[in-house]
């Protein structure tokens, strides 16, 4: 056995009794001079991150020029965005999380009726986002044309996207803003303060809500679960005519995310 190894583990490594000092003695000799307070450092200035709009490449479209043109952009195996060349639901949005919630949304009803794999439809301005069941791999090459055809047919016939009752019941932007800020400050933020997180209302356009996640929420692996299953559900319960709830956070710039990986 090498000598350094035996030294590390041998009892002789302890200091002789005469040289030992008690904790009280140690505390007495530890003056402020020995342990000066660390100098306070100025916090780095907070900078905003601006997201400029990404301009989609202007791919040539096929079909007659007077036809309603729709492009499909699969996001992953269970979500696809359909970009229409004209407003589908101008300035507003509607979220239907299943056929049972689509009574006020005739276009969403049509898409749910198309295939039972469709579990969520979000209509916002020029776009229709369709989510399919996560347990089924969707082949968008074959399924997207069916959805595109259904959207085109609905728009051609002039069918409404939302019922007149739904549209009439949408609160003003000011009323939505006040209600959302009240819920954020009184319910949401106290709840996530334990994770050093905070959620701020970035803006309201029509009935579409833009939220920013800060502190421990920014970059947190569980942030989308918090947003979708916690905050959005809470807001939608209070305001049934609420449209899409969109996250504008730059999560890549988060300094101190609470979860770096999803908790087991």
């Amino acid at each position, binding site marked *: 056995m090498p000598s350094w190894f035996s030294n590390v583990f041998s009892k002789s490594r302890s200091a002789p009794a005469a040289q030992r000092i008690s904790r009280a003695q140690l505390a007495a000799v530890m003056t402020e001079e020995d342990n000066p307070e660390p100098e306070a450092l100025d916090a780095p200035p907070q900078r905003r991150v601006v997201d400029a709009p*990404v301009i989609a490449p202007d791919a040539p479209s096929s079909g007659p020029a007077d036809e309603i043109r729709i*492009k*499909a*952009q699969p*996001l992953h195996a269970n979500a696809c965005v359909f970009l229409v060349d004209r407003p589908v639901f101008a300035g507003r949005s509607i979220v239907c999380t299943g056929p049972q919630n689509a009574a006020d949304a005739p276009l969403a009803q049509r898409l749910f009726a198309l295939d039972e794999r469709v579990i969520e439809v979000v209509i916002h301005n020029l776009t229709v986002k369709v989510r399919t069941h996560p347990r089924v791999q969707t082949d968008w090459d074959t399924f997207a044309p069916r959805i595109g055809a259904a959207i085109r047919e609905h728009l051609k016939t002039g069918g409404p996207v939302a019922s007149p009752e739904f549209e009439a019941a949408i609160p003003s932007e000011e009323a939505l803003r006040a209600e959302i800020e009240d819920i954020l400050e009184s319910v949401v933020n106290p709840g996530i303060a334990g994770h050093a997180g905070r959620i701020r209302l970035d803006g309201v356009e029509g009935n579409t809500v833009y939220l920013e996640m800060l502190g421990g929420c920014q970059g947190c692996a569980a942030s989308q679960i918090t947003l979708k299953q916690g905050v959005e559900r809470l807001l939608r319960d209070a305001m049934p005519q609420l449209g899409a709830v969109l996250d504008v956070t730059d999560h890549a710039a988060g300094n101190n995310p609470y979860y770096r990986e999803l908790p087991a």
Partner: protein
Amino acid sequence: MPRLDAFDITIRTGARGRSRPPHFVINGYPLEFDTHTGSTEPGDVFEAHGDPGSFPHSLLLAGPEEGSWDIEGVTITYYPDGEESYTVELGACTLDDDADLNINHPRPAPVFDV
């Protein structure tokens, strides 16, 4: 995103420019562009090449040190390690002295007519 070997950036400045050439910030670390031509004066075009050679969790174009900078558009061509290069086009925005522009964009998802 895989390791980003390099990127080319073209910035078209609008009504309000900046006098000093911009730099970029990768994962919070500021770096100068390796080469650049043109300027960021009003109406000018600035072209630059950056060699981060790293995995960008965050990639920013630094805003002006003072005042505001109107950007009409930005074109970025990324050269990821071991993959085909791709280009992303950004629209107009304004950067103030407390703001940076996010230029960390993944390869655009394929789009097709339906």
